[in-house]
């Protein structure tokens, strides 16, 4: 993996796009790994009773998948110092082989002299934005 340097980064630079599928099996695996067993993430009956169209992905899974774009771009996952998102719309995951697809794009919003780089993230599923105000900050060496 190539370590990105501050000098290699320009404001406005686009990162990605990165497309990643989210299937029911991914939700079950994430539930186990994270300990979040809320049934709206794996049980259609419970999801519908809660007023949702179908099972939805964990917001934290969407946040983690979008974070992958930033950490792989930086070349060092330990470079990420802050990461904020708003879960604006649920990612509905149908019970089929394709699941839902996330389309993730980053854009460098600010490059600062202290080595911090602010990346704005856009995440869409089914043509709709699912995260709001998603921003990650990485610290890069000069």
């Amino acid at each position, binding site marked *: 993996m190539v370590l990105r340097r501050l000098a290699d980064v320009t404001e406005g630079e686009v990162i990605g796009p990165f497309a990643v599928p989210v299937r029911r099996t991914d939700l079950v695996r*994430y539930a186990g790994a994270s300990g979040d067993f809320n049934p709206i993430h794996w049980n259609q009956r419970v999801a519908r009773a809660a007023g949702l169209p179908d099972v939805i992905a964990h917001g*934290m899974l969407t946040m983690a998948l979008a974070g992958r774009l930033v950490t792989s771009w930086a070349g060092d996952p*330990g470079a990420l110092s802050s990461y*904020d998102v708003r879960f604006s719309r649920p990612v509905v995951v149908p019970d089929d082989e394709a699941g839902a697809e996330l389309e993730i794009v980053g854009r460098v919003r600010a490059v600062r002299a202290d080595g911090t780089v602010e990346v704005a993230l856009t995440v869409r599923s089914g043509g709709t934005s699912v995260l709001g105000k998603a921003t990650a900050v990485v610290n890069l060496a000069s």
Partner: protein
Amino acid sequence: MVLDASLVGYTTATSAPYEVGREKIREFAEAIGDDDPTYRDPAAARAAGYPDVIAPPTFGVVVTWLATSALVADLGVAPSRLVHGDQRLELHRPVRAGDELVTTACVERVRALAGNILLGVRCEVVDTRREPVLTTSATLVVRGEG
């Protein structure tokens, strides 16, 4: 318990230590489909300047979610009424294998909105030397009953 502004400042007892293991980190990295060697291979992590494998950034929220769940249970809120509204994560350093992390969670904000309650919960995570590791702040939407 009534969910109103009088709860602001309510703080959980410090959690029991959460011991971060290499296999848990690997399991989490696999669950998010990330094959970065820094998460799996101690030699690769050391080459990158870390004492052991590090965890993906959002793993920190796995730790704070435990304390947040305990706080919400203290307040008498059923987990099925909760929706995750937003999440802020500040990492003072990467979480790594071998860490023993303790968390305190406190109520930061309470606001009624359209029949729901917005509950702001802040968590501070420190290691055994009391050095700060991460800070999180989340808004939980507590859906109105009926």
